[in-house]
Structures are given as C-alpha cells and as structure tokens.
C-alpha cells in the first residue's frame, strides 16, 4: 500500500486530465515565495501541508495567503509543524478558486462484489465517514466494459450536476477510472470535488497504489510510506514487520497464525510489541535476518510460533540458531519456541542442540512467554 501525498496524487491526476487548481510544491519558505512571486501560483492562494493524515484544515496545516509575504509566512509556519506525528517537509501552494458546491467522489474495491465501486455524494468537503448512508451512492463498475454512460449519468444525478457540469463530470470520471485501472490504485478519492462555474475542479487528491502491482510501477518504488525506520528496513528485506505498543516480540508465519498468536498472548496478559510474519519462506538466511531485525526492536521476550508448511520447521530452526550466535550479549532476550508441522522432528532436534526447547501447546507456550516478559506489563 503506497499512500501518495496530495501533490503526488495530483501529478497523476494532471497526467490523466483531471482538472486541478494551478499550483506547485515548495520545500522551503524561499521556494514558496518564489513560486508566488513569479506567478506560477496565482494569488490569493492556499498553502497546504503535504502529510498523509487527514484533518489538516482544523489542525492548522492549511493556511491562506493574499500576498507574496503571506504566502512565505504561511509556508514557513507550516513547514515547521509536526502534524499527527509526521514532520511536514513539503507544502502545496495552489490558487484559491471561487468554488460553488463541494462534492465527494471515489473509486475503490468492493471485495464482496469483486468489483470496483464508484462512490459519490453531494455532501463533500467533510470526512465521508460522517455523511449519512442515504446521502452516499455506490455503483459497482465492471472492468470489462469499464465505466459506462448510464453509470456516469447516475453519478451526475446524485451530485446534482447538469449541462456543462455533467459533461465535465463525464470527462472527469473517465480520467479517474483510468487512474484507478492504469495506476493499479486501491483508492482514488477526490474530496472535495468542487464546482467552479460550469466546471469541476479536484481540490484534494487521495491516491493509494497497491504494493503488489509494484512490478508494473517502478516509479512508485521510491515513495516512502508511513513506516517506522525498522519497518522500512523490513520492507527492503521483504519481511512483514509491524511495531505495536507492547514488549513481546512475535515471530510467526502467515497473517492468520500471527493474529491468532497475538490474540492468545493478549488473553494471558501479554503485550505484543513487534510482530514479524515470515510468510512462506524456506530460506534459513531470511529467518536469520528476521530474527536479527527482531533483536533491533529490543523485545523483553520473543515468541516463535511456526506451523511448517511451505516454511519447513528445520529451515526455521537452522536460521534461528544461526541468528542467536550473532546477537550480542547485551541484546539477548528470553525465547519461547513452538514449531509444528512439516519436518517438525528435525526442527526440534536442531533447536534442542542449541539449547532451546519447543513447547508443543500454543496455550502453554503463550503463558511461558508472557511470564518470561515479566507478566502483565
């Protein structure tokens, strides 16, 4: 999941013909001043923090400017902010348009229908979660014919657009559909979509690109997500790694087993601090890397819960033992292991030779690791 910042989303919009306010990005107050001074951003303008979290307006991360000086000051103020834990490094400056109504439009996936779904509401400019359901229209779109005329007409009706504005919506919807399909988006959201005279303008852009399609989109590889530094390293090593608030590290394989492990730990008073999903590897080196990464996170105790399938128990045991030799003494932590499934006997033997006992019961092993981490925190 690659969440694009507003300006990156708008770059994509521009390429596909979604109408936008004139604007540009600045990374310093000087840049911002220059953009307004040389007319690339007309006045009056709006200056917006480029952060992924919502609620920028209320949070002081959006300001208005009617002069070069005000634009510079607004940029300077916003570039100093830390907004919901995220340091603001970029601002987007855009002309302030005389807008009419604020609408909502998005395309995303409906998993149950297995179809893209076009969501429209005349109640734009607020978080869509706060709009009552009857005010939100949902239309599935089949990828074979793509977006059709009747779907566009229905959207226009829902949004209260006629004449030139309805024709503008037609073109905009085609462009948004193209963005969704060609950019492998999970979400394309325009909120607000504003009426400006007889036309439409996307005032905001929220685009989320699917990770799994990255082989088609090398251009998104460099865009950072909202990951912690350790999560970023894990991503590079292709290890699923998530940091939580507790002190127990969990290494498991498969999302379902990982979640079940967390559920059991919590039941016995444990607080998971990191979880690390080995997935379906059968390379001992990857297990070693994962284990060393876990050591970096300084857990109070680690629970290794593996059910061998594609990942064989002996592979995990081998990788684990290799990693244990590399962890410096000051970073050592208590380890509770439970390995079951394919090549279980071989794995248990390898662990035993390294002094680790595998506890076959999930319940007992979970209780053991909670105790090792110091009980209920």
């Amino acid at each position: 999941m690659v969440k694009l910042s507003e300006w990156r989303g708008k770059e994509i919009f521009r390429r596909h013909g979604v109408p936008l306010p004139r604007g540009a990005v600045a990374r310093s107050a000087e840049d911002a001043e220059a953009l307004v001074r040389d007319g690339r951003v007309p006045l009056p303008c709006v200056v917006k923090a480029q952060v992924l979290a919502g609620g920028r307006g209320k949070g002081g991360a959006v300001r208005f400017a009617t002069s070069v000086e005000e634009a510079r000051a607004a940029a300077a103020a916003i570039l100093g902010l830390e907004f919901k834990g995220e340091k603001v490094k970029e601002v987007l400056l855009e002309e302030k348009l005389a807008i009419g109504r604020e609408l909502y439009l998005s395309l995303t996936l409906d998993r149950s229908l297995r179809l893209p779904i076009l969501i429209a509401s005349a109640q734009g400019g607020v978080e869509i979660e706060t709009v009552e359901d009857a005010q939100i229209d949902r239309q599935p779109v089949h990828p074979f014919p793509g977006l059709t005329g009747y779907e566009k007409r229905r959207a226009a009706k829902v949004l209260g657009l006629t004449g030139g504005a309805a024709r503008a919506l037609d073109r905009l919807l085609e462009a948004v559909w193209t963005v969704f399909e060609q950019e492998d988006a999970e979400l394309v959201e325009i909120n607000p979509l504003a009426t400006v005279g007889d036309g439409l303008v996307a005032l905001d852009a929220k685009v989320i690109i699917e990770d799994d399609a990255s082989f088609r989109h090398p251009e998104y590889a460099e865009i950072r997500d909202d990951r912690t530094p350790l999560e970023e390293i894990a991503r590079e090593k292709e290890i699923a790694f998530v940091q939580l608030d507790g002190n127990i590290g969990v290494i498991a394989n498969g999302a379902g087993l990982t979640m079940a492990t967390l559920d059991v730990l919590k039941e016995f008073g444990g607080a998971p601090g990191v979880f690390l999903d080995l997935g379906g590897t059968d390379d001992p080196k990857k297990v070693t890397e994962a284990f060393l990464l876990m050591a970096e996170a300084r857990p109070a105790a680690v629970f290794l819960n593996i059910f061998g399938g594609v990942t064989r128990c002996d592979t995990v045991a081998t990788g684990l033992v290799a990693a244990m030799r590399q962890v410096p003494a000051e970073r050592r932590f208590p380890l509770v292991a439970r390995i079951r499934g394919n090549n279980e006997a071989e794995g248990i033997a390898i662990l035993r030779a390294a002094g680790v006992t595998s506890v076959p019961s999930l319940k007992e092993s979970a209780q053991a690791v909670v105790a090792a981490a110091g009980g209920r925190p």
Partner: protein
Amino acid sequence: MTVLVDRDTRVVVQGITGHQGTVHTRQMKLFGTQVVAGVTPGKSGSEVEGVPVFDSVRDAVERARANAACIFVPAPFAKDALIEAVDAGIRLATVVTEHIPFHDMLVMYHYAKAKGTRIIGPNCPGIASPGKSKVGIIPNVVFRPGRVGVISRSGTLTYEIVNGITEHGLGESTCIGLGGDPVVGTSFVDALPLFEADPETDLLVLVGEIGGTAEEDGAEYIRHHFSKPVVAYIAGRSAPPGKRMGHAGAIITRGRGTAESKVAALESAGAKVARFPYEIPDLVAGALTEKGRR
C-alpha cells in the same frame, strides 16, 4: 466427487520447474493426487518428479487429460497462466501464487466465472480431501480422513487448526484454504453450498480473520441455507484498528469487518465460535456428539 476434487482429479502444475512447483508436485503425489502434467514454456519433453512437462496447458489437457490446475507461476505472469488454463478447458484452478495485483485478479475472477471455471485462491493453501486428492500446498501430515469440513481464509492457521482436529482423534472430509487476498475466486459464501451438499461432511469449521466482510456474508448464508453444525474461529480480535496485519485482507475497516461484528454474525447464525484455535477440537467433538454423529 464430494467437494470439487476426488480420485479422478488430474492435476496440471503450472510452473512445475520452479522450486515451489517441484516441491509441491512431490507432496501432492505423496498425498495420492494424480499429478499428470506440468507446464513450463520451453521445457516440454522434460520430467519433474516423474511428471511430464509440456509447453502449454492445452498440451497438458490434450495429451495428459488434465482437468484441474495448480498455479505456482510468479505474480506478474499469474493472470496469463490462469487465463491459459481457463481457455484450455480447465474448470478448477488453485492459484497458490501470492502478491497478485487485485486489478489482475478482477480480470481473472470475472473471466473464469464467465467461462465456468472455479478459482481457489490466489495466495492460498488450496484444497485437500484426505484419501482422495489435494490441489495445493497444505501439509500432508495434518490430515486424516474423516467427516469434518474446513474452510479458511488463512494459510498456516488452517494447518494449525486441521492438525488440532486430527490430533484430537477426528478427521477431515475436505479442507479448502480460500486465501486472504482482497479478491478471492471462492469465498465462504461460494464454498458453503458445496459442504452443505457433501454427504461426507457432518460438520463445518469456518476459520476467518479480521478485514473484509466475507465472514458476515458467510454467516448470512449459514443462517438461511446451511443445515449442518458450524464451529468458527476469527483471528485478529486483539489487532489494533488501522494497523496492517501482514496482508491487505487484514485491514480493519469501520463497522462491519471487525472481529466483533464477525463473531456476532456467526453466533447469531447458530455457529459455535471458539475464542482461541485450541478450543476448536472440543467444540467440534461436542457438536458431533450432540448431533449423534460421534
């Protein structure tokens, strides 16, 4: 045939010369599956684990009478591989490959559906019917022939749970690992009627996880159309909202899609819901005794 596979299932392994393809061809054969062909373009004439390799699925169908596919090819080529299988007349395809873009899977799903091909997966363990056939990667060791059906969105958690049922002295009729991706070929709602109609299944274990509404949809089906006892488990009750738990199927969305909404839907549909995986075997045994089936 009971549920989708039986002793007449003749499997073609697409991507057989890759590491995973080779390993699991061997495992499927050990399970008793008739693996009759492999496909790797350009490798026709060779053999893998005693299985002849062809250049195309069409050749595998025409010359080795394959009627089911197990797909291991890398994600960028998985869509092509599935469409090739559909066009060659394959009507059951297990897609093991993970990380297939959902936009590709939308095309795969709707194309296969139009042509009458059932997809299991992607990113899934596949299907196994002990004593009959396996098309996929579920470890052989966890099974024993029996009368408990299992459907699950998870991978290893499924193995864990099936293993628990087997260790408890019970056995399985058919187990399907549906995969946890945003778009799956076979969902709970699609799989439930197969087990309802299966004379070899007495009870169904449904293993879900947070994210999506497949469990809620399944519960709705169970309420109206499913007559056998159901034991369910939902993984991820302790997951913090909004954090990704390893794959896109595990994003917590607001309202429906939470562990609470899934558990409530299943309970109100009459399922017994386990709080932890290790509670499942006792619930299964209890429900079977209650039904007089054990």
